[in-house]
Each structure stands twice: as structure tokens, then as C-alpha cells.
């Protein structure tokens, strides 16, 4: 129903109701808590719209951030009316907005009333459905406008009489006040919140003290800082905590704060438990309330850390100095550099802080040209961040000291965001000495290596597991294998083809006894004889940790030895033949005996038969004797063959008594012719492992020597005792004792010299050879002058351990045809 202002009573009533409404609204907003403002505004909008029969109302507020932006903050509308846009778009309401910004009231009853320049706005309003609109600025005391209140009619046009506008301006004012207050309260609350946040969340202590020093407010942290609870703390005052013993300083701080309104300083405060802590105070002064607000930070730890750092820096400096290391810093940002004394010494630059970076250039210039590129390249990499730091060694041409070797570690300290280096630092040390030493060492190692490799003998270094650690070039050549296959292999398969150590392995002996050892070894693969010697390698504690094995090719020597042995055998043979030859005449005589007997027997037999009275028994006996004598001759022949044979025979187990008897048979005639009275006493069971012919050669030699020694004795005083015994020590002992003049003292040394003889004939090699023969059999040959008369020559031979059953023990050793 459209309001009729011309009806007086109804109009008065209406007016009264309206005034009542306004009064209600005013009073309601007076003590409205900020939080309810918005709700009340919208409610008020509703009541006004209902009262005035309007369709919708919007409160547009100016944004805090963007001052010409209006945001819809409050709205009421009848159900059919759509919600307005969030913000008032410039493009939709350009003229409208302009009016608002100017702080003018906008009112129109119909869209046609809008001026020409508001064409756009008109269109927008039409779309919106607005037919009439009244928009009032919400301004605080004619000053800044915080927004507008818009009232709209959409169903029908309406008028806006001035009186109504004026009354509605009151409403606007109420809204303005409420909103302002809300804002202020909000701001205040924000402020309080921020304040609270700051003071509660800060790890620093916070207090407010009044002019008398009393603590009027503090946060929990402050209490904790000093060991009080908050409640306790609020009863304290500055004097309770002030521990700075320098009153002048305290006063200075105060004055500074009061003068400047703000100060930050360090001081000392006392805690509840009496401990003194270092505190950093950041304080402001509010003259209006004469209170100080301060943030307090316990910097005891920091101070300690600083002290530690100072100390450690001091230590660093000291150690840098002790290490003889020079330190430098370059500040590219400020274009300055620092070098300590040591750096100055090493690089030949003045020490200390210096403006400009000429030092750097100086340093670059003095790097040896051959090394410069490398050093600068590394430095570049570090500066570019490619590497953490650069580590270089280079030659440096010190202006005064000449060339030295420098080891440098350089680092980048800080960079700009653009990766441009601001500060770099590093250390240098003079390593000339070390370089010289390592150069000398390298040369020595080279020399050693050269020497090692130039040794013709094989040298191998083994560890305790017989693994090859190192070999010289000669070894590689000898084994004919690549180095990788040799090193770390076990030595046994390579050296003698067996998987593990062999009998008599010198390395094993060395490890067992910790002494050098050696072995002659035949290396099948190469066909060479090696003399392998091992020597222990000890560590500093003296423990044997390995062995040096030296192997020398002794193939030549072995060959020479073999040749020597051959020659020796030949010589022995020659001597044997010569000795046998010397008794040829006697041998012939000896053979003659059986031959004579045979001839006589046979011829006698023939005569008997011719005589016609032959006794068969007699004939038989004759023939038997002939057979016997023939065999006897055969024995002599075979004995002779033994002496004369060229071929070497292997040693066999022989019955020494039989062997001696054989040679006695050969020399019998000789001894007889020399009138030598021979008395043999031979133990029958002595078995030795020997070369029969060689033993007989020795016997012949000794017997002939004895016979010749006695040749100047009267014929009935030529006694020759020949004994064969077995000793306790497992040897056979043969002694030839003559009754000659004995060996004169001046001849005793020469007896066994080759080619020395007192005889008119003979080479004088008989005795040396006899000795060699006996010694090669493991025996000894020597002589002694008899206490009574003459000399005794004797020799020993080791008794055979096992009696060879094929050798006849007690039976005749004469085996016809035996070589």
C-alpha cells in the first residue's frame, strides 16, 4: 500500500512510527558490540525497507587496499530481488561511482531522471530492476567516506522528499558510526592481537616498565628468562634484575632510549637464582605514558659461542701460524684483500689488509708459466661453483727467494644471488722441501726399480702365504707370463709346477726358522737349474712378514759341474787303467799260474793216455783240475775287466771283503815279487753301497803305495797288514798298514796334492783320486804314522742300511762274467 504523506493523522502516526524506528535504531547501535554490527545493519536495512516499502538495500564499503573499489558488505532484499555483485563494477556504473567517490548523494525516482552521461548506469540499473534509488555516503564527520548506503525500489517508482532524505541521512550516520567504530575496534583488536601474538610467540622476553622501573606487563618468556613465573615477575622491578655494575653505562642506555625513542644494547641481568646472564635489550620509550617497552634476549649462549668462536679463531690463527700456512681473503665486493704474515712470506707480498685486489694480480703473475693455466682453471671452477674448493700444487716465482713449490687450498665464501663471487679465501703452504724430497724419493725409487729390474737373477717378494707380492723384470722374462698372472699368485705352481711347497722349500724353511735358506731346483718348464735362496723380511717389530726369494740360473754351473764330474770320472778311469797297467806284468804272471797248471795237466793226461795205462779216475781228476784252473783264470780276467772298463756302473750293494779279495788276487804276484808279506784280516759281513771298480782302484792304489814304501826295507821286513772292520758308527773301516819308513812331516801336506809324487814313475794323482772316490761315496780317506814303524792308510765307507738279498753274503763273490 503506498504511503500517503498528505493524510495528516496517518501521516503523523507514520512520522511518529518512523521517528520511533530511527530512535530505536540509534539506541540499538549505541552500545552495540563490534561483532553484532553487521547483523544489526542488515536488520536495520530490512526494517527500513519494510517501513518504506522498498525492495532492497546495499551497503557498499570502500576497500582498504584499493581506495576506489566498492565492495558490497551488507544487503537486504525482498525475495525476488537478486543479490548484487560483490563489487561495484566501473564499467557498469561509471557515473554512479564517480558520484559516490565525490561524496554526493545520489537519488532518482525514475531512470529517466539520470543525466545523459549516466547512460551506462541507467542500463545497468534497468537490468538490475531498479526503478528508483537513493544512495547516501557513509562518511565520518565530513572526512573520509568509508562507503555508501543504497536504497532501491524495483516494483514501483518512488519519491525521495528532502525530509525523508534528511532522516535517512541520520540512519546513514548511525551506520557510519557503527561501521567506523567496528573498524576501529577491529583495528584495535587486531593491534591487540598482534601485540599479543608478538609478545606471546616471541622467544624473547618482553616487558613494559613504568618510569619507576616497575614491571607493569610482561610475557611468559620474560619470566622464564629470569626464572620467575609470570605472576611473580609482575611484582618485580628493573632494579631486581639489573646486574650491570657500571652505573654510568646504565644511565647512558636510559638517556639514549629516551632521547632517540629506541635503543638496542647489551647488558647484564640477574636471574632469580642469582645467576648473571648477558642480555640484549631492544627497547622503545613512550613519552606519553612514560613507559619503556623492551624485548629481552638471553645472549649468554651467544656470548659464549662468540667467545668460543673467538677462542677457536685464536686457536685457528695459532695453528695456522704453527702449520706455517699462510691465509688470505679476497673481497671482490668491496675490492679488498687480506693476507697474513705467513702468506706474505710465502708469496712475497706485504701482509695485512689492503684496498684493491692487486695482490691477486701479483700472485697470478708470479705463478710459473707452465703451471699457471692449470691453477687458474681450477680457480675458475671453484668460483663458478663447479667444485667446492680447489686444491693445487704449483711452482711460484718468489721475487726474492726464487722458485718454490706451493700447495694451495682455495674456497669461495659468499656469492650473490647471481652466483657472482663476493668473497674468496684460502691457505697456502710452502712445500718446496717436500717436493724436493718427493722428487728425490721418486728418483731413488726409479733407481731402485732400475736396479731391481737390472738384476739378472730372479727376485721375488713373497708374503707369508707364499703369494707373490712383487717381481723384477728378470722374473717376468723367465716365467714368460704377463705380470698380472704372476703378481698375487702363489709361487709354487709357477716355480716348480706343484700346487704347494715342495720338500726342502727354502721359503718354508725361512718362515720356520727366520733364517736364510736355499735349495737347488730344476725348473722343468725352462729346463734350467736354479739356486733358490730365501731371506726373511721383517717389519719394524721384527716379525717376519714375508720373504725375498732370489733365484739364480745355475744351469751353466750345473753343466760345468756335470762336465767336471765327467772329466773326473774319466780321470779316475785313466788312473785306474794306469794303475792296472802298472801291475800288468804281475797280472800276466798271475794268469800264467792257472795256465801253466792247465797245460801241464792236459799234457800229462795225454801222456797217460798215450802210455796206454791211463787211469780214468786220474783223467777225471786232471779234467776237474783243468776246469778249476780255467775258472780261476776267468776270475782274474773279470777282475781285470772291472778295473779296465770304461763305462760307469751304478753303485750297488757289494760285500767289501769279497771286493778286496778280488783285488788281492790281482796283485798277489806283484806283492810276491816285491817280497811283501801280506796279512789280510777281513770281516766277512761288511756291505756297502759303492762302485766296485772304484773301490778296487782305491785298494790297488793303497796296496801299491804301501809296497813301494817298503821297497827299501830288507826283504824279510816288508810286512803289510790289511784289515777290514765295522765300526760302531755304521761304517766299514779298511786299514792298510805297512812297515816302511812312514810319511815324513814335510811331505804330509802334499800327499793329497795332485801331481805330487816321490816316485820315479806315475803321475802322482793316485792318492788325490782315491780320496775323491772315497769322499764321493760318503767316506773319508786319511793316514797316520804308526807309533812303531811305517804308516797306516785307512778309509771308511758308510755301511749299506739295507742288506741287498741279491748280494751273496758268505759265499764266493767271484761271479764269472760279472762286469
Amino acid at each position, binding site marked *: 500500500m503506498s504511503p500517503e504523506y498528505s493524510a495528516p493523522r496517518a501521516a503523523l502516526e507514520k512520522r511518529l512510527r518512523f521517528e520511533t524506528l530511527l530512535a530505536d535504531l540509534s539506541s540499538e547501535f549505541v552500545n552495540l558490540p563490534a561483532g553484532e554490527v553487521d547483523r544489526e545493519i542488515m536488520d536495520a536495512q530490512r526494517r527500513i525497507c519494510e517501513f518504506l516499502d522498498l525492495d532492497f538495500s546495499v551497503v557498499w564499503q570502500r576497500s582498504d587496499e584499493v581506495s576506489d573499489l566498492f565492495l558490497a558488505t551488507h544487503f537486504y532484499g525482498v525475495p525476488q530481488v537478486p543479490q548484487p555483485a560483490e563489487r561495484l563494477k566501473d564499467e557498469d556504473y561509471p557515473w554512479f561511482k564517480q558520484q559516490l567517490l565525490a561524496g554526493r548523494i545520489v537519488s532518482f525516482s525514475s531512470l529517466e531522471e539520470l543525466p545523459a552521461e549516466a547512460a551506462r548506469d541507467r542500463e545497468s540499473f534497468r537490468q538490475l530492476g531498479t526503478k528508483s534509488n537513493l544512495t547516501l555516503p557513509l562518511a565520518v564527520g565530513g572526512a573520509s567516506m568509508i562507503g555508501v548506503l543504497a536504497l532501491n525500489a524495483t516494483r514501483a517508482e518512488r519519491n525521495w522528499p528532502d525530509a525523508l532524505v534528511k532522516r535517512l541521512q541520520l540512519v546513514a550516520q548511525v551506520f557510519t558510526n557503527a561501521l567506523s567504530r567496528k573498524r576501529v575496534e577491529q583495528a584495535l583488536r587486531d593491534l591487540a592481537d598482534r601485540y599479543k601474538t608478538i609478545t606471546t610467540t616471541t622467544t624473547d622476553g618482553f616487558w613494559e616498565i613504568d618510569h619507576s622501573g616497575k614491571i607493569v606487563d610482561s610475557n611468559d618468556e620474560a619470566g622464564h628468562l629470569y626464572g620467575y613465573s609470570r605472576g611473580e615477575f609482575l611484582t618485580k622491578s628493573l632494579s631486581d634484575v639489573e646486574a650491570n655494575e657500571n652505573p654510568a653505562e646504565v644511565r647512558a642506555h636510559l638517556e639514549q632510549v629516551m632521547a632517540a625513542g629506541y635503543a638496542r644494547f647489551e647488558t647484564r641481568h640477574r636471574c632469580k637464582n642469582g645467576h648473571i646472564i648477558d642480555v640484549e635489550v631492544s627497547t622503545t620509550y613512550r613519552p606519553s605514558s612514560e613507559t619503556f617497552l623492551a624485548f629481552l634476549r638471553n645472549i649468554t649462549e651467544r656470548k659464549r659461542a662468540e667467545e668460543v668462536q673467538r677462542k677457536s679463531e685464536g686457536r685457528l690463527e695459532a695453528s695456522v701460524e704453527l702449520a706455517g700456512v699462510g691465509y688470505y681473503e679476497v673481497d671482490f665486493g668491496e675490492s679488498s684483500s687480506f693476507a697474513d704474515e705467513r702468506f706474505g712470506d710465502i708469496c712475497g707480498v706485504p701482509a695485512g689488509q689492503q684496498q684493491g685486489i692487486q695482490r691477486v694480480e701479483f700472485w697470478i703473475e708470479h705463478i710459473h708459466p707452465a703451471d699457471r693455466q692449470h691453477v687458474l682453471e681450477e680457480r675458475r671452477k671453484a668460483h663458478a661453483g663447479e667444485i667446492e674448493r680447489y686444491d693445487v700444487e704449483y711452482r711460484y716465482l718468489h721475487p726474492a727467494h726464487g722458485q718454490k713449490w706451493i700447495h694451495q687450498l682455495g674456497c669461495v665464501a659468499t656469492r650473490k644471488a647471481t652466483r657472482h663471487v663476493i668473497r674468496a679465501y684460502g691457505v697456502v703452504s710452502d712445500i718446496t722441501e717436500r717436493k724436493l724430497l718427493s722428487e728425490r724419493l721418486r728418483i731413488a725409487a726409479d733407481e731402485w726399480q732400475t736396479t731391481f729390474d737390472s738384476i739378472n737373477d730372479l727376485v721375488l717378494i713373497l708374503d707369508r702365504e707364499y703369494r707373490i707380492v712383487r717381481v723384477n723384470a728378470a722374473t717376468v722374462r723367465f716365467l714368460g707370463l704377463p705380470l698380472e698372472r704372476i703378481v698375487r699368485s702363489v709361487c709354487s705352481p709357477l716355480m716348480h709346477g706343484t700346487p704347494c711347497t715342495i720338500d726342502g722349500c727354502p721359503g718354508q724353511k725361512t718362515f720356520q726358522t727366520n733364517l736364510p735358506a736355499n735349495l737347488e731346483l730344476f725348473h722343468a718348464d725352462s729346463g734350467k737349474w736354479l739356486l733358490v735362496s730365501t731371506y726373511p723380511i721383517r717389519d719394524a717389530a721384527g716379525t717376519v712378514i714375508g720373504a725375498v726369494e732370489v733365484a739364480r740360473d745355475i744351469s751353466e754351473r750345473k753343466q760345468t759341474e756335470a762336465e767336471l764330474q765327467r772329466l773326473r770320472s774319466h780321470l779316475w778311469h785313466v788312473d785306474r787303467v794306469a794303475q792296472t797297467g802298472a801291475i800288468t*806284468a*804281475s797280472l*800276466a*804272471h*798271475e794268469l*800264467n*799260474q*792257472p*795256465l*801253466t*797248471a*792247465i*797245460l*801241464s*795237466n792236459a*799234457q*800229462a*793226461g795225454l*801222456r*797217460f793216455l798215450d*802210455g796206454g795205462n791211463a787211469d780214468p779216475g786220474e783223467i777225471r781228476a*786232471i779234467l776237474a*783240475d783243468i776246469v*778249476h*784252473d780255467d775258472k*780261476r783264470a776267468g776270475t782274474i780276467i773279470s777282475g781285470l775287466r772291472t778295473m779296465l772298463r770304461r763305462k760307469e756302473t751304478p753303485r750297488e750293494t757289494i760285500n767289501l771283503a769279497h771286493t778286496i779279495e778280488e783285488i788281492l788276487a790281482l796283485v798277489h*804276484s806283484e*806283492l*810276491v*815279487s816285491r*817280497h811283501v*808279506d801280506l796279512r789280510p784280516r777281513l770281516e766277512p759281513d761288511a756291505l756297502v753301497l759303492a762302485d766296485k771298480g772304484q773301490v778296487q782302484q782305491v785298494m790297488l792304489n793303497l796296496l801299491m803305495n804301501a809296497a813301494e814304501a817298503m821297497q827299501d826295507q830288507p826283504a824279510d821286513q816288508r810286512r803289510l797288514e790289511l784289515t777290514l772292520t765295522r765300526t760302531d758308527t755304521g761304517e766299514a773301516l779298511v786299514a792298510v798298514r805297512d812297515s816302511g819308513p812312514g810319511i815324513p812331516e814335510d811331505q804330509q801336506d802334499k800327499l793329497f796334492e795332485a801331481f805330487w809324487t816321490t816316485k820315479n814313475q806315475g803321475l802322482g794323482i793316485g792318492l788325490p783320486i782315491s780320496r775323491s772316490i772315497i769322499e764321493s761315496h760318503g767316506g773319508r780317506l786319511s793316514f797316520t804314522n804308526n807309533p812303531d814303524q811305517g804308516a797306516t792308510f785307512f778309509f771308511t765307507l758308510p755301511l749299506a742300511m739295507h742288506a741287498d738279498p741279491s748280494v751273496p753274503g758268505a759265499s764266493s763273490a767271484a761271479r764269472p762274467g760279472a762286469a
Partner: protein
Amino acid sequence: MNRTDATVFVVDDDPSVRKGLLRLIRSAGWQGEAFASAQEFLAQAALSRAGCVVLDVRMPGMTGPELRDLMAAQGISLPVIFLTGHGDIHTGVDAMKKGAVDFLQKPVDDEVLLQAIQQALERHAAAQIYRQELERIQACLLSLTPREREVMEYVIGGWLNKQIAAELAISEKTVKIHRGCVMHKMDVHSVAELVRQCETAGIAPRLPTAG
């Protein structure tokens, strides 16, 4: 000569040789006896028997030549045949010079040995006869008086009685008497015989001086 009477002694140190030689000797019909050494021979041999010795040269102890020398020194007159196994010319020459019958090489052929033995035995026999004759002559000589002996020496020297008388300053008649006794005691029938006998006995004639 009665063969069975003669004994061939064999001295050789080799038993086989002894055996063989003995057989050979027996096969020739002689008796043989063998000894192993000179000492054994000297000790055991019936040295008075007729025979000879086959002697090995080289023996231990006393050698063959030494034994022969010893035999000669002891007046054992058995002839010696040497057997040697080793052809020593020097020994052989020496042996032959000293009167060995032969010096033979071993092995010895039967003919050679037996011939030597035969020769030795004959020599021995001859020697025996000779010795007997000598003994007789010496016995006769012993029976002479010194003067008779003296005269004999002149006689066999071809001195005339007259010359002997003048030499001895005795009468010729005395000389003739002595001469007769000598002829008688010496049992000779001619001066020639006497001369032969004296030769045998080794009496030296007194030779006439010139003028």
C-alpha cells in the same frame, strides 16, 4: 841210470802249478815231490837223492834264485831248472850264468820241460860220478907227504927229475923215489893221468922258469 832212483823236486808256491807239474813228471816216468816254499824244500827234501829241482822264480819268502844260491852255498849239488811266469831276461841270464840247467817260461810245454829234466838228471848223474872221482883223488892226495906233494906239482909241471932235484936240492934218486910213491898213492899209471887227476883236483902245476 835207474830212473826210479831219481826224484824231481818241484818248488812252487802255486798249488795248481805243483799239481800239474807233478802229474807231468809222473807221466814221464819219474818220481816227483812238490814243496810250497824254499823253506819247506830245505827242511823236508831228501836232498841226498839223485834228482833235480824245478824251481819257480817268483815266490814269497825266498825266491827261486835265492834258494839256488843257498843250495850252492850249502853244497847241495842238485841241478836246477827255473820256471818263470814273467819273462825276466835279467834273472834268466843271471841264472844261466850261475849254472842253471835251463830257464823256462810258464806255461811250459811238456817236451821242453821233460827234456830239461832229462838233461838235469843226466848232469846230476854225471856230476855224481865226477864228485866220487874227485873225492877219491882228494883222498889220495891227502895220503901224500908234503915232499911227495911238492914233487908231484913239479912232475905235473913237466919238470925232469934232474931239474926237480936241482930245484929242491935233493938227489935225483930221491926224486925218483918220491915220484914212484906219488904214482902209487895216486893210483895212476902215467904222468898224463896224474896231470888229469891233478887238474880235476885243482892242483896247480909248478911251471918251469925260463932257462
